[in-house]
């Protein structure tokens, strides 16, 4: 139990997927202009990422095995892309409201490095099924956490007298840098 908790804490804070592992940055930068959208994006990513880590574990464990390791990337990404596409279609049909909010961002999840990165890291770290799921969940929660915090700061920054050349993405980058500096404070918490 504590182990699982540590995995969760470790992936959310200590080895935060965005700030420390540097994965999933494009949506992190792209969808964090507004708090609401970043929350929704976080939720969608959490859903997809958890499913992706679970199903890719199954694919890897039961379909591929050690001999076909060279198919890992290929099969994972196809599974992920299909999951995302399917989710998108279902959401679009069943909940137009949710689709309104997430519509533009759902396809983006496919190209979120984190979504492929976490299953690959799972394989590398030889996680079992539960661990894989937790690792995916934790990674996604960490992603959501930093994105929401970042969105909050970016919203506030809109009003700041930022020098012209830094306005927009440049200052966002610097902010992300200082955030990752802050996240270094967690280093060593979970060894």
């Amino acid at each position: 139990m504590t182990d699982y908790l540590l995995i969760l804490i470790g992936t959310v804070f200590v080895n935060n997927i965005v700030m420390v592992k540097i994965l999933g940055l494009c949506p992190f930068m792209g969808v964090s202009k507004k708090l609401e959208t970043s929350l929704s994006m976080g939720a969608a990513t959490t859903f997809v990422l958890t499913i992706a880590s679970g199903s890719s574990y199954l694919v890897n464990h039961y379909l591929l095995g050690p001999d076909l390791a060279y198919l890992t990337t290929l099969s994972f990404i196809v599974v992920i892309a299909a999951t995302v596409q399917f989710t998108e279609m279902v959401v679009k049909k069943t909940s137009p409201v949710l689709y309104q909010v997430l519509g533009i961002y759902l396809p983006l999840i496919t190209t979120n490095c984190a979504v492929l990165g976490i299953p690959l890291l799972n394989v590398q770290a030889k996680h079992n099924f539960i661990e894989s799921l937790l690792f995916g969940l934790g990674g996604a929660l960490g992603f959501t956490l930093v994105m929401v915090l970042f969105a909050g700061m970016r919203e506030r920054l809109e009003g700041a007298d930022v020098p012209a050349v830094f306005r927009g993405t440049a200052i966002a980058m610097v902010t992300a840098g200082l955030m990752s500096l802050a996240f270094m404070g967690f280093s060593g918490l979970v060894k």
Partner: protein
Amino acid sequence: MLSSPFITRPLTVDRIMLRVLYALLPGITLYVWYFGPAILVSIALAVTAALATEALMLKLRDRPVRPFLADYSALLTGVLIALSIPPLAPWWLPVVGTAFAIAVAKHLYGGLGSNPFNPAMIGYAVLIISFPQEMTQWLSPQGMGHSVLTYGDQLRYVFSGVLPVGMQLDALTMSTPLDTMKTQLHLGMPMSDIRDLPIYGRLAGKGSEMVAAGFALGGIYLLIARIIPWQLPLAFLGTLFALSGIFNLIDPAHYAPPLFHWFSGAAMIGAFFILTDPITSPTTAKGRIAFGIGAGLLTFLIRAYGGFPDGVAFATILMNMCVPLIDAWTQPRIFGKKKGSER
């Protein structure tokens, strides 16, 4: 045409900052008393660097220089950075840290009032990550080391890195009480034995506990003068006390007692001078309590389990990230609105 009101109360930004600076004096005095005058050199260096960077950035940004230099906020940042790094540090250490703090953490965001992160703590974090070796060699209190450096010796070391013949830096410096505790615990020494080490005094580190007390004194002045809100220090120190108390009760061999936590490291200066930076802390009463609790929790976690001996700086900037959300989610009820009613 000017809008109403036409009268104002004459308490200005520079006076607020100045009072904060005054409030630092007791702590600084005790610092000099226990550790020698090297810290004054650090302060002078950091302050010069702060003012120079501030002026340069204002010029670059095409903003008036004079009024912003005269608001003392850069000066305060400089002093706080100097107080958080080892006094006997090479001259470029406070300079690099302060310049980074003012240029990147403050002016890239638009200068005074716009920075989301506490500049001084960003400066400190950058230094401890980039130069961990230089940042962990603290002066032993006067009379603790085998030899005492004269004022001139300290100056010479700071600028040229040369110590008087026959002296070794090792003999003059030590790791901080928190650091030592961490190392010794790591090596398996029980708490009680650790506390018997010569560097510890009654509450915490010899000398440094008194400096912390000095900062607490200044902090109480700030509280009384209503310069800082009470929620922040109370929530922070309270959380730190409660957590360390509980852990200390459960396992006294591995966890330091609450007062040790209070009087070592940056707890006191953090509670009264750093977390309270108005610009980077929440503006609502509830938000401040949440902020203080969060910072206390993180400080304790990092001290007890993390990779850094002290956690105040990282806890501060980690909580700084949360400020916009804390503010947004703790908006007070306004006149004529029901609690919890949709805004």
